[in-house]
């Protein structure tokens, strides 16, 4: 067990180091000098040089990499080129929206997908199955921004249950904040839920064909009991894999939905930073996302072990 944990942790650290190098290198080779961009076309050469010096763009590549990484380890993400405020604070404000949004969407997606997938598998080939498969096919196919706009039209403009966009802020109380995240979370969750429901269904159907389900039925379990007690746990492993991938996507991929709902989340921050050549912000946010993905994968690995005793024994 300890060995497994150490190995997973080691691979986590290695992934982070490699990712940081790649991100740093990519931002370095991207064309566009932030200093020149900030000062505009008519900048004087000496002003430009001074600004470059101030922004720390002049040192050697290696020294700048270590400055950057060293700073991040201590919580110092540098200062935004455009806003002239510490990146750490900006990112923290955005994470306070994007992380709850991702978790909210993930919870919704799971809450929809698990029952739907189980229901469809239990009634394979019957009306329920056909319905779930049809609806999820649509859910996968429909672009979520279009669905988001539809929801704004119905629930915000016509029914006036929700605001059409913007974020209430956590100062307004938990429920007000969550309310303003509800429509975006639904828009994010639906395609994910469709995929997850289909994975759940097919994984369950595979498991229901296993010999041990027949054994369970021979013991006197009903179809439903055999499904709940014996198939579900075994069917969970591929579902966990997808769930892990989806969380990463939800955290980083909310950019379009954030734009539709005017949410000041991470996605919008990256988008604005890229347009403004605010490379230090881009680097920091991307690094943060990579960190989140790697941590989620680590948790998924642990979840596999929790589900499957064979894996635990091999740890």
């Amino acid at each position: 067990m300890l060995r497994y944990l150490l190995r997973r942790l080691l691979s986590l650290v290695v992934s982070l180091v490699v990712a940081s190098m790649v991100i740093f290198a990519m931002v370095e080779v991207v064309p566009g000098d932030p200093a020149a961009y900030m000062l505009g076309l008519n900048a004087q050469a000496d002003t430009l040089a001074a600004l470059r010096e101030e922004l720390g763009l002049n040192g050697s590549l290696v020294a700048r990499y270590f400055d950057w990484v060293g700073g991040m380890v201590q919580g110092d993400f540098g200062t935004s080129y455009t806003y002239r405020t510490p990146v750490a604070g900006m990112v923290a404000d955005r994470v306070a929206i994007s992380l709850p949004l991702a978790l909210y969407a993930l919870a919704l997606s799971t809450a929809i997908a698990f029952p739907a997938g189980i229901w469809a598998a239990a009634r394979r080939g019957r009306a329920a199955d056909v319905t779930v498969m049809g609806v999820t096919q649509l859910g996968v196919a429909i672009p979520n921004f279009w669905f988001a706009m539809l929801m704004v039209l119905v629930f915000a403009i016509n029914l006036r249950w929700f605001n059409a966009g913007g974020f209430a802020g956590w100062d307004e109380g938990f429920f007000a904040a969550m309310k303003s995240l509800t429509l975006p979370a639904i828009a994010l969750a639906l395609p994910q839920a469709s995929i997850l429901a289909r994975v759940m269904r097919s994984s369950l159907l595979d498991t229901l064909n296993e010999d041990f389900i027949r054994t369970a039925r021979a013991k006197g379990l009903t179809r439903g009991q055999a499904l709940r007690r014996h198939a579900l746990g075994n069917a969970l492993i591929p579902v966990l894999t997808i769930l892990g991938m989806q969380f990463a996507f939800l955290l980083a991929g909310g950019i379009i939905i954030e734009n539709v709902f005017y949410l000041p989340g991470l996605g919008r921050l990256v988008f604005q930073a890229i347009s403004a050549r605010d490379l230090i912000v881009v680097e920091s946010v991307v690094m943060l996302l990579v960190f989140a993905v790697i941590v989620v994968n680590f948790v998924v690995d642990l979840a596999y072990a929790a589900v499957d005793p064979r894996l635990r024994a091999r740890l």
Partner: protein
Amino acid sequence: MSLLQIERLDMEIHGTAILRNVSLSVAPGQIVGVIGESGSGKSMTALSVMQLLPDGAQCRGEVSLSGHDMLTLPERALCRLRGNEVGMVFQEPMTALNPIKRIGDQVAETILIHENVSRAEAMARAREALDRCELPADQFPLTRYPFELSGGQRQRVVIAMAIALRPQLLIADEPTTALDVTTQAEILTLLKRLVEEDGMGLMLITHDLAVVADMADEIVIMRQGEVVEAGPAAQVLAERKHPYTRALFEASGHQPERADTGTGAPLLRVENAVREYATRRKGVWGKPGVFRAVKSVSFQIERGESLGLVGESGCGKSTLTRAILGLEDVQGGRIEMDGEPVFTGQRPNRDIRRRMQVVFQDPYGSFNPRWKVARLVAEPFHLLDGRPADWREQVAKVLDDVGIGADAMERYVHEFSGGQRQRIAIARALILRPELVVLDEAVSALDVSIRAQILDLLAALQKDYGLAYLFISHDLSVVRNVTDRVMVMQAGEIVEEGPTAQVFDAPVHPYTKRLIAAAPVLPEFATQD
């Protein structure tokens, strides 16, 4: 009164008739052997009793289990009977248990589902059931997971689950087919003891006549969904009224006509061969251990002879086979064919490999389903320096030789039955006209009548092609009938070697004795005509 009474049972699945007019009965304390080849409907008969049939199945007739009419009872009532009045044991113990639940929980579930008892009491009774199935508490605590047990031990857990509530009827569907002979003997003894202790009826389904000959009171012989012969075991075994019964008996003990083709000239020499594997590291910084799967094995195969290699699962025979085929290198000793090593550098020695081919057990898994037969059979040509110009003629010839016919060339393997596929596999092995063919459990997956045909074919080909066979099998009766010499392998070592008749009639090593004693045999009067 009978415990189980099946009368004129017809069953069809989506309109295809599977069972026709099946009648049989099991009395309390009686063992009824149901025998048949694949597709005979023996398993479907059992599943009809359990009413666990595939979707689309329709039954007509009567199945009455201690007074309950199983064909009309609603599903809820059937669930109350399954596991309680009737238990079932299946063929494949490796997959019959839920891999992520503890064995104690799985056995206790049978009790908890049917009786309103506390979990603690159910666990105590699960313990009792496992004890009765000879899985003692000190070695097999309730907290074990299935993957920590061997196949035979898992089958005991499945049996414990089935008998936990002392059902009146136990249905065992090929319960020992996937097990080694010594394990098979133990499981059969266990089943017999449970029948005696609880007075339950046992419906024992098998393809192996010898298994039931030893223990059944009544025998039912099935073929293509019908009962062809039934009656008291001794009578059926002695009289064999129906031609199919006679054919089945003949095929079970079939002895192909073999010419003495041994030449005395050595072909393959294995000298002190050692095969080792690295095992898991222990602890965080530990070094991997070494597992010696083959421990200094020496023997040789002569041109044109048939050498048998028998042993139970895990004895190292597959590992040895891979080394002989040059798929893996040895860690000690030498394996040479005509003085040339079978493995050179990092790969098999191509010059040797083309003179040595293999046929595996599984006629379904050993072909690429997307290739046509012609391409499959021609595949070994890649061992030559190029496909000969007349390769299609050669493929046609060899397909003729194995009794498939050249018109199979443009077809895909899924169009062929298991026996036909095995013939195609033999054709593939023969296309390069090898000198040695390794038959790795090559007839083990086949029904007895098909097996008899393949054994005849192998005998004929041996003569025509001048082949030497290395015949690897766990089935002692087959090895006895088709080999000149035999080697017995245990735990990576060859413990006995000699002329086949001598080893079987007068075994010297205690392990050989145990193996031969455990193998079920047909009674004398049944094998003599």
